[in-house]
């Protein structure tokens, strides 16, 4: 196999790992936001949020 093959696979691996970590952080954030929104819809809020809403 040529050197170009090893270089190309290395950069593809670097992109895949970086993209994977970015996707993990992004999807995790979306899932947590959705979960918080569901709790809020069910009337479950943090005490500090409740006092702000009451004002």
């Amino acid at each position: 196999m040529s050197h170009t093959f090893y270089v190309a696979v290395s950069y593809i691996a670097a992109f895949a790992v970086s993209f994977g970590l970015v996707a993990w952080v992004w999807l995790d954030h979306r899932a947590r936001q959705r979960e918080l929104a569901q709790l809020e819809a069910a009337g479950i809020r943090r005490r500090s949020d409740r006092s702000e809403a009451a004002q």
Partner: protein
Amino acid sequence: MSEPSLAIRNFSDLANPTRFLALVAVLWPWLAGLTLCLFAAGLYLSFTTEGDYQQGETVRIMYVHVPAAWLSMMCYTVMALSALGTLVWRHPLADVSAKAAAPIGAGFTFLALVTGSLWGKPMWGTWWVWDARLTSVFVLFLMYLGLIALNRAMDDPARAAKVSAVLILVGFVNIPIIKFSVEWWNTLHQPASVVRMGGPTIDPEFLHPLLIMAVAFTLLFFTLHILAMRNEILRRRIAVLRRHAARAAGRKKGAA
């Protein structure tokens, strides 16, 4: 009632997760933008500079392999400092930091192993050898996986934080072993050529893209780390809310 101030005047102000989240919201777009700019410059230099007279084109693998290997050790050092924060100062965000960093460290260590292998095959004639440097980095990868598994296996976050912190600090002994393995033992892996007494020994043609890529990867790490910490804070808030809701429902049931 007056609004709580979100201004951060000293390091201890970051102990307040709400303040930390406000700081992350301001900081992350700038960090991400700077990371992208540095990656653009680093990748441009990585593919426009000359190949090496001996290694040929494979020298370009170094521009992703070396930063990934540096980050694998830096991430563990961040985790060790966080573990100290948990055990010594009981900083509320220290465990959040250690837990959020582990998957990122595992990712970069995996990348260092894969790209090292991809460089080793054409240059050494083998994908892998059990020499001191390669073996100690592989042990580091296993330690990251072990810490992720441990955190997921324990239900009580306070107990998981303490056990993880102790394990992280014990495992930190591996970091100087990785760094000095190429000097203490006779390894196939070459000795340090950038961070060494007497300055770098590599040509500026290779040093410039390498340093820019290293800074880009480091900024990527910090961007991912603060965003992963934000997710972990939200996860803990959700767990507390669910617990409170379950308790309130139990009390209502008891009163009825």
